[in-house]
């Protein structure tokens, strides 16, 4: 009883797989390309793509699958980064201390923010998450000991003893890539688990989910904390990548960037945040090479995607998804 559109969908599903596989192959081969051509800038750029993709992925867990639009997600990048930076400055150089601290601090902040914010709905939720991010931003501005507004240079990357040397750019790149893939696997498992079903159910009709007996608040809070923890890890990576932290990491426009990446790629797609982050950052880079006014082109492109591609770039390769 198959109708023709099903065949087409099958073909398009294949296209999505092919595109995703291509993205992974490209990411895996970047260091090889860099080694062959000596193009170190490509390494730097793609490391950044991967780290921000991890952050956008964590945002998409709550935003795309849970319907919780957080407009302050960059705050966890900042908290993760500051955990690494502050500990480094105070003489705790070990990554075994810094990274768990980054994850713990951002989880804790997410727990507080989530517990207070998840009572609100819609635009009010967007705004209260923004408010909490702004508060953290101004705390960082006031941290005179850690550079205040100017930020803080980190002189020593997190050390993992003989295990892995983060100063080795290739090793660091592959570590970031491995963490991103692990993050994507985790999100995929979560979204398709019973837990994920409750979260997705709460997005489409929270009242009904509560009526059939799920304490949706607790489920959403746990989801919110997991996303915060993941983004905190991305923050720790980002601090190690740039060797620098500053309040600008959690400025509201950075949170806007993360939303843009996730929505650009497609919030219903597992690869959406990665493809979105890659497109956004590479496009920005490419445009600023050919013109002095890159945003004059980038801005309308984003507007175009928002207006015409319901479902982001993912809609190009797979049509609209259910839900």
């Amino acid at each position, binding site marked *: 009883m198959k109708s023709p559109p099903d065949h087409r969908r099958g073909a398009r599903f294949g296209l999505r797989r092919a595109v995703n596989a291509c993205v992974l192959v490209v990411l895996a081969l970047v260091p090889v390309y860099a080694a062959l051509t000596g193009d170190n800038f490509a390494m730097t750029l793609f490391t950044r793509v991967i780290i921000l993709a991890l952050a956008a992925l964590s945002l998409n867990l709550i935003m795309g699958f849970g319907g919780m639009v957080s407009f302050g997600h960059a705050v966890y990048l900042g908290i993760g980064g500051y955990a690494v930076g502050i500990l480094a400055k105070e003489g705790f150089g070990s990554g075994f201390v810094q990274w768990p601290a980054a994850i713990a601090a951002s989880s804790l902040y997410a727990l507080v923010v989530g517990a207070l914010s998840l009572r609100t709905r819609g635009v009010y939720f967007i705004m*209260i998450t923004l*408010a909490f991010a702004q*508060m953290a931003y101004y705390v960082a*501005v006031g941290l005179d000991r850690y550079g205040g507004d100017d930020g803080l240079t980190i002189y020593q990357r997190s050390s993992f003893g003989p295990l892995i040397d983060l100063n080795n750019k290739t090793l660091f790149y592959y570590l970031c890539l491995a963490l991103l893939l692990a993050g994507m696997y985790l999100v995929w498992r979560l979204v398709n688990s019973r837990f994920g079903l409750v979260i997705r159910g709460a997005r489409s009709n929270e009242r009904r989910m509560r009526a059939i007996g799920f304490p949706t608040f607790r489920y959403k809070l746990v989801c919110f904390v997991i996303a915060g923890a993941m983004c905190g890890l991305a923050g720790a990576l980002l601090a190690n990548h740039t060797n620098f932290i500053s309040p600008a990491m959690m400025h*509201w426009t950075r949170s*806007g960037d993360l939303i843009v990446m996730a929505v650009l790629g497609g919030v219903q797609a597992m690869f959406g945040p990665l493809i979105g982050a890659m497109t956004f950052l590479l496009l920005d880079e490419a445009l600023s090479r050919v013109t002095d006014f890159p945003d004059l082109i980038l*801005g309308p492109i984003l507007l175009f995607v*928002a*207006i015409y591609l319901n479902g982001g770039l993912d809609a190009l390769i797979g049509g609209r998804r259910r839900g």
Partner: protein
Amino acid sequence: MVYFIEQFLNGVELGMLLFLLAAGLTLIFGIMDLVNLAHGSLYMIGAYLAATFAAWTDSFVLGAILAVLGSFAVGMVLEVVAIRRLYGRSHLDHVLGTFGLLLFFNELVRLIWGPAGLTLSLPNEMLTAVQILPGLFYPLYRLVIIGVTLAVAFFLYVLVMRTRLGMLIRAGASNREMVGALGVNIKLLYTLIFALGAALAGFAGLMQAPILTVQIGMGENILISAFVVVTIGGIGSIRGAFVAALLVGLVDTVGRAFLPDLFHAYLSESAAGSLGRSLSSMLVYLVMALVLIVRPEGLFPAASK
């Protein structure tokens, strides 16, 4: 005491400017259900247009009038070309689209006016300070801002509460579909509301321009404050926006003026300085978080949906 009154007036002035931005934002939010991150760009455009027109016409007032009309026109074009296509979509699409517009406008301004800022100078008679109490001199221009924005607020009140257009605006805020079903030209109404919001934002930008410099990105931080006002006031409520704008303006200004001194009494010089600075910048967000925790739909929730 004199210092306190001065800071109080500064707070009122900031609050009134925020109200100009927030009034348009809350209408656009409440009626079209649109998250507009480009609203700050219209504020910036108002300031740039005023600086340019004032230089052409050699008159501050003429420049200001032309700039408000210009902002209205920009708002209209923007609504027809882009914004209209985003109605009824998810907030995520709004964020993506209007974030794109924000990038576009920043770059456009850089292309037209260059990366350096502009200045908009006041006519000489505005530069004086007036004695409003024995021993208290206050800049005339800031009083003018307060007076003019109060007049605009009154005009908005009459427009929204006493005219047919205002009736449609209020009806649109409480039930959009019904207004459309009753045969009102919704498209035109939306265009007018958006352009009105743009004109108000542009007006706020040009009023603030002589005090600060006219520069790229000037709308970004004040946009967030305006969002805070809209949220505290309750989305779609002009009355709420007015109360919340005064609240935010006063809390912010008075906090910045007095918190550091308060901490000086208990803490060392440097600790008090940095703590006071952080806390006074955080204060409005703290107020907003508290308001939303107690009242998840703001102080004056618009009529139930």
